[in-house]
């Protein structure tokens, strides 16, 4: 075991995958010589060579389109999109091609690829270095969407995603890239996709969060605990396919749900979670499910701490929901 932050844990996962499977290769902008703008791939080009850690030209369409071709040949490409905000030029390749290839060939071809991308705000990145576009991909049949919150899960989920036979979007919470440290095994262990984790057991309200906002949800839960409200915090980890059972069984017990995400509220994933909870646990609900989210504006710079659903906005929502 070694103490690692998220960047180190993801690097360790990539190193492990490159060592264990010769079909794995990495591609993206500045990931080789530089080691990525966040240094997530640092040292990998030196160890595995320029044929397995490819510095690509500056084109998300090119990165994702060629990665699909490689995956169709049986390689397992792991692409890095430098910021989730820059994924849109490659959106067509993900939505029209990667997501649909298995379906449109009745399983004859499939696209085992992972797209890693740092997402989210809180780094003073303004509107083009702060976005959380996960809902766009959850809305696309054929894609899996993963968003770890901590180093241990990040490594295990990434290794699992690389081995998965479907295309996986892997959103990395860059706000906590270096903020969170924990003991992480050197081995290539796996954390299965599709399993949420109860990170704080509680009786009164269920709070669903993922990625960087998990810590805010947790902090808010601790704060309201002082007022006697006992919150169950669930880290979704895999956003799609969703661990619906963990969510519904918790909400059936608490009768109350608060959902936290950075993305704008309207048509965000929170809306879908509210619908699923309402459909499945309606008779158990004691309060309307509530969303604490980014506002429906582009991501602002100066007031980013008021845009983000930080603990100061989550705690009142938890109290109101508990006392509804």
């Amino acid at each position, binding site marked *: 075991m070694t103490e690692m932050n998220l960047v180190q844990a993801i690097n360790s996962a990539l190193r492990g995958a490159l060592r264990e499977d010769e079909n794995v290769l990495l591609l993206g902008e500045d990931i080789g010589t530089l080691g990525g703008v966040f240094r997530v791939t640092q040292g990998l080009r030196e160890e595995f060579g320029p044929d397995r850690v490819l510095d690509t030209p500056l*084109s998300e*369409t090119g990165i994702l389109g060629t990665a699909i071709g*490689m995956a169709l040949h049986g390689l397992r490409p792991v692409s890095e999109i430098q910021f989730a905000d820059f994924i849109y030029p490659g959106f067509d390749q993900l939505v029209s091609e990667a997501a649909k290839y298995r379906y449109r060939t009745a399983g004859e071809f499939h696209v085992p690829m992972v797209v890693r991308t740092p997402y989210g705000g809180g780094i003073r990145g303004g509107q083009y270095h702060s976005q959380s576009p996960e809902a766009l991909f959850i809305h696309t049949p054929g894609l899996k969407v993963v968003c770890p919150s901590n180093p241990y899960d990040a490594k295990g989920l990434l290794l699992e995603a690389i081995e998965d036979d479907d295309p996986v979007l892997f959103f990395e919470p860059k706000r906590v890239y270096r903020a969170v440290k924990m003991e992480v095994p050197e081995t290539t262990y796996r954390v299965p996709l599709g399993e949420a984790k109860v990170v704080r057991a509680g009786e009164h309200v269920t709070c669903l969060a993922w990625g960087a906002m998990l810590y805010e949800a947790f902090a808010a839960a601790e704060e309201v605990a002082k007022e006697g409200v006992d919150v169950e915090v669930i880290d979704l980890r895999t956003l799609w396919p969703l661990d619906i059972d963990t969510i519904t069984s918790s909400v059936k017990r608490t009768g109350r749900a608060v959902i936290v995400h950075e993305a704008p509220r309207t048509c965000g994933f929170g809306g879908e979670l509210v619908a699923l909870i309402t459909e499945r646990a309606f008779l158990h609900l004691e309060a309307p499910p509530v969303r604490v989210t980014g506002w429906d504006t582009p991501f602002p710079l100066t007031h980013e701490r008021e845009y983000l659903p930080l603990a100061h906005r989550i705690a009142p929502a938890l109290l109101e929901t508990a006392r509804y």
Partner: protein
Amino acid sequence: MQVIRDDGSLDSKLDPGLSVDEVVALYKAMVRTRIVDDRLERIQRQGRIAFHVGSLGEEAAIVGAAAALRDQDWIVPCYREVGALLWRGYPLQRYVDHMYGNADDPVLGRQMPDHTFSRSHRYLAVSAPIGTQIPHAVGLAMAAKKRDLDECVGVFFGDGATSSNDFHAAMNFAGVFQPPVLFLCRNNGYAISLPVERQTATRTMAEKAAAYRVPAARVDGNDALAVFGAVREGVRRAANGGGPTFIELLTYRLGGHSTSDDPKIYRSEEEVDAWRNADPILRLRKHIENRKVWDDDLDSDWRTVCDLEVKECVQRAEQKPAPELGETFTDVYAEQPWHLREQQAQSLGGPRAAAEEDES
């Protein structure tokens, strides 16, 4: 570049060196493609299939290029290249079943007609967005190169696709990474209604390749032997580690863009007539007749064979049932997740839609 002269004789300096049997096989495949096309267009007009996108006039560009690729090479199609798939021995019955979206359709009725694929024929899947397949071909070729395999990739696209961002991304990646890929640009004069002169300000498609330092050739796409020669040369370069090649195949779409198109709105009959005289099938026929290996009787016998074959395939396809409704819910992921199991059960257990009214 042109190999077959107007009188059917061969420019010996440019002769790609095919045996006479091989040339006849090429001709027969082009005729078969046209007859299949023609039959499908008719049954679409009768409302028996939903859609068809044909290759009338472009058979030399398609079949000639496919013939020049080796068995181990991949074909990445646009959507007009079923002649290349048939050239590789894809069963005609399977294609016609696909056109009907019946239970034997390899894609189980999930796609519009003319969205073919076949792993065993090394033929990737047709999609519909323009140009998206071009970077796939580059990635496929990069994978073959990384694995040190003697394979190259031929990717088809039209003149319109050279306006897509995927085209430029793919060309740039090919220039940088030098994979064994052949860009096969069927310049057929039109992207649906837009003539190539208004698609791009460049005089040729081939000059776009220069910007990416990809070697380019420009050939008469209605001359099957010229197409064969140029593509074979590209294969040779790719196989010897020489990287990508761009080949502009100058041809003309004699039919509509698809059965949903009405080309009379945007081009004149005179223009089309002029190109009818440059028909690639007539050209190759003149050549093999010139070599005394083909005549009217052989021609009419072969057309009868093809016609009967496709008629029988159509008859069989029409008798087959629709695919199972439940199959709509599989192959979204390797394993079916809970929400699709649930939706499948809801669909199967729910009410059925009324039959579509006959709109014809």
